């Protein structure tokens, strides 16, 4: 069944789920990423973004070239915390000072 075809392999999201999201009003890859998580996996959407853009285009009639792609966020490749942590904080100050969580 076409519906069950996995489009986002990292997050296990199917064609059917994406079509449903687009029909529900999510018309950019950014919005679909935030609700379904496709594009948030280890490959950061390198595998699935294009396919999702194609589904959006097919459902909305907007040309693929005009479908908005997700912003590519750093790091370029997943990087180990231990590797980044080596050498301590760059400014040598263990306290980052103020905090907040929202």
């Amino acid at each position, binding site marked *: 069944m076409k519906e069950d075809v996995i489009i986002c392999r990292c997050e296990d999201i199917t064609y059917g789920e994406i079509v449903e999201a687009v029909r529900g009003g*999510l018309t*950019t890859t*950014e*919005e679909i990423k*935030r*609700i379904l*998580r496709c594009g*948030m*996996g*280890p490959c*950061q959407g390198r595998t699935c973004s294009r396919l999702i853009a194609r589904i959006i285009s097919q459902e909305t009639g907007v040309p693929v070239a005009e479908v908005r792609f997700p912003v590519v*966020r*750093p*790091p370029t490749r*997943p*990087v*180990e*915390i*231990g*590797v*980044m*942590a080596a*050498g*301590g*904080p*760059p*400014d040598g100050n*263990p*306290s*980052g*000072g*103020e*905090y*907040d*969580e*929202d």
Partner: protein
Amino acid sequence: MKTSADCVIIGGGVVGTAVAYYLAKRGMTDCVIVEADYLSSGATGRCGGGIRQQWSTEANTRLAIESVKLFAGLEEELGADIEFLQGGYLVLAYTEEDERQFEKNVALQRVLGLDVQILSPADINEKVVPELNVDGVRMATYCAQDASANPFLTTQAYADAARRLGVTIELFTPVTKILTEGGRIAGVETTRGRISAPIVVNAAGSHSVPIAATAGIDLPIKPYRREILVTEPLERFFHPMIISFSFGIYFRQVKHGAVIGGYGDPAEPPGFNQTSSLKFLRTMSWKLSRLMPRLNTVKVVRQWAGLYDITPDAQPILGELDELPGFFQANGFSGHGFMICPKVAVLLAQAITGEEPDMDIERLSARRFADGRITQDRSVV
């Protein structure tokens, strides 16, 4: 697009969508949300999703307690999964000053009915987070009913529920001007046309400032970049949000398994910059590796930044402006908008529909800056 409505709400974040929902629930269904981009594209969708009740002033603690009550019933009320989890908040004290302040906080919080425990470093490992490195930690406070939720799903759930009640949502529609007439609000002008309305709610986060400025109003809010990162998913190994004011960190494990967290850089200048920095990635990695050594071999998959809309007392600006009747503010949340949103949105909806708000919102009115009635909460920024 509609050309008139009973109420226009600027901003499709958690605050804007929640205000629309609670207004519609009270019968004011002719509302339009105008969002410059897509839902939760601003501060809401960039935040850590923590919901804390441990505050140092009575007013904030009460607001947070009431918000948790609303959050706890939200999945049923809105008919959607928002990943609400009462995993608790563990607040670490590293200094004597922290310790003294936390003891005061806990005394107040307990009077208000919050179940907060004071934990020794050994207790922390035994009772709450076995793997936390407690070197240098003097004590901690822990409230098991503190919580977290998914900000995207919460906003989407409010938006869908509001739509079902008749609210219209216009995405990709930036507001270009606030319209006034005879000293009153008259509506908004957007890139796609005008919408006239007797009530306009400004819930656009940091962008509320330039928007209000188009009507000559100067809101005392400054935008500050705050960075955050997320790791690959791991099997759950701790439940609470872990935070420290003095060490400067917050982090939690989300439902999907990833660890998400950040800290605020006190040297950050105000501005609309939302780029990510290597300095943040390195400092945050160092902090995480120190507190949770197991994370050393875990990979960061993504980092991003968002804007805190900070007021002089780090409290939101809520309610109608004296200088422009009909123009309501719901902004300046200073980094804790998501967690207090449900109750704040109810209070604002009550004020707009002429109901008596069931908590005092006068202390959050813009008047406080002119009158100099400002109290600082020690548990923020």
